[in-house]
């Protein structure tokens, strides 16, 4: 039996996103445990593991974020197939190698079969690079990775019984990387498989930078170079000065992005004002009022590279 679990802080989000996908993916005998969060995601997920760890018939436990929707009808078969190798402990649809920190997207991402669906600015989709395999770049592949994005995570029975999320690490950030590291340290493989999901999330990747930074430091301290986490070239002094410079460079890039946005938005607003202020637009207003509005087509952001879009 393949079980599903979710930790819920916003029931309406769960019912709009995760529940829909679980219904689509689950088999008739699948058990679904949608549980109100009991603290941090570490603790909530551990509660789910405790619930299923004593069960003999569990083939896999799939942990789904409340804002993630599995869109693969054959999901359970894909998970079964991935877990047929007894060395495999964890399965996901987004993963990377060469990971050195919780910012796993800074590493070499090998698989990103998801869409980031956002609501800001009229809403839209950001399809990641292996969402459509026929358009995927050469580096896209499924298989063994160092870490997975935890928004949809399938766990083998051994993992459910033997591993636990490290509740000392904080509230949310880094729970998935740390869990993958534990699995790999225990000799298990962490793999991506060919299933797809939609992640309903805002465009802001780090809404709580201070918490994120603290989690980053805690995880680096915990693993302290083991499995490559927290490793880097040069002395600590070199690393500090380089990283401080690169952080300021990233902020400078951010400022330039903001200027770019203001300039482009002004340009488009000028064009819109010219259009709607023209005599011909005003003369033909009555005809447009007679027309029924067309349904909006889904928007896709395509300007950025596929790898970036995965981040």
């Amino acid at each position, binding site marked *: 039996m393949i079980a599903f679990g979710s930790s819920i802080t916003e029931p309406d989000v769960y019912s709009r996103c995760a529940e829909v996908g679980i219904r689509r993916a689950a088999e008739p005998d699948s058990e679904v445990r949608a549980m109100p969060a009991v603290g941090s995601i570490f603790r909530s997920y551990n509660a789910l593991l405790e619930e299923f760890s004593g069960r003999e018939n569990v083939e896999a436990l799939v942990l789904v974020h409340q804002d993630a929707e599995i869109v693969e009808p054959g999901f359970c078969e894909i998970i079964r197939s991935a877990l047929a190798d007894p060395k495999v402990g964890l399965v996901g649809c987004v993963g990377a190698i060469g990971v050195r920190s919780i910012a796993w997207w*800074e590493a070499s991402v090998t698989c990103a079969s998801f869409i980031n669906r*956002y609501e800001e600015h009229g809403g839209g989709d950001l399809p990641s690079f292996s969402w459509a395999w026929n358009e995927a770049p050469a580096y896209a592949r499924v298989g063994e990775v160092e870490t997975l994005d935890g928004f949809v995570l399938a766990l083998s029975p051994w993992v459910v019984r033997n591993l636990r999320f490290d509740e000392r690490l904080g509230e949310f950030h880094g729970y998935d990387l740390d869990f993958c590291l534990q699995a790999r340290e225990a000799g298990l493989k962490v793999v991506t498989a060919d299933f797809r999901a939609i992640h309903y999330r805002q465009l802001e990747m780090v809404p709580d*930078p201070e918490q994120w930074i603290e989690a980053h*430091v805690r995880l680096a301290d915990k693993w302290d170079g083991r499995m490559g986490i927290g490793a880097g070239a040069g002395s600590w002094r070199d690393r500090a000065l380089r990283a401080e*410079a690169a952080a*300021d460079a990233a902020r400078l890039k951010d400022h330039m992005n903001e200027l770019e946005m203001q*300039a482009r938005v002004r340009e488009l607003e000028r064009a819109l004002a010219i259009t709607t202020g023209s005599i*011909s637009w005003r003369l033909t207003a009555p005809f447009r009022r007679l027309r029924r509005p067309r349904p909006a087509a889904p928007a896709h*952001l395509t300007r950025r590279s596929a790898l970036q879009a995965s981040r």
Partner: protein
Amino acid sequence: MIAFGASIQGAEAYRRYAEPGIELAREPDSLVYAFAAVEPLARTYNLILDAAAGRDDLEALALVHAHTELTDPRFCSKVREALRDPEVAIVGCAGAWSVRGIAWWEGEVTAGALVQRYEEHGGGELPAYSWTRRGSPPAEVEAVDGQLLVLSPWAVRNLRFDEGLMLNYGFDVDFCLQARGAGRRVVVADLRAVYHRSIELVNDLDVWIAAHVQLAEKWDGTLRGAVEDEHGWKRRARRAEADREAARAIAFSTSLKLDARVLELERDLEEKTSSLSWRLTAPLRALNRWRRG
């Protein structure tokens, strides 16, 4: 006498921006030291300092970047006012307190009525440093923006730009740190100017990063406090690496938001300009354009 100096790398930029601004701001007796650029920028500025240092009647030397246009007819009187305090060595039009590196704008920024004028996307202007909160001058700061540096006679005679900083970034912060190290003050005054520059403030971030490291190595104990031992460096590196990756993620989020906002406006424009009524009336608009020539 208030003198003006400029390092001219692109003659066109100087002619279009700095020169008219200097003409507006100068007084009849002002001298203008317009020197051809010698790399690095610090070298040219030192040549200007050497030339101005011998003038007994020097009240101030304003170093104006070729892309900076002074727009303040009261420039000289404001400079005199700012330099009335003999402890003031450097006056700028923008600067910051809590400066921790060449990115002085990450500190607590003070800026007057400054405008950034850009040519991209049909052109336009924005308040300079619009991305951050800006306090109003006058204010004492730790460093000022090198787009405009007004130096006291003491600074002209006693300080020199560090020609060892080869990458042309951070010369302003370094110069201000030298002045403050000598016990002098650095201030921002309400000097009006337009920065004529691209939205892309720095076109080679790798070079900028190298310059950041270079200045940090020179002034590190001053900018961020001394680090005692290897453990201290490790703590600092851990924090800095986390901060770097958070900053990258935030920058990437901004670019996503930019795309989403632009896409929204493009959809709106596309919907309007592809409407039947808009297409049907295209000949009228063409006629109108032709009529207006």
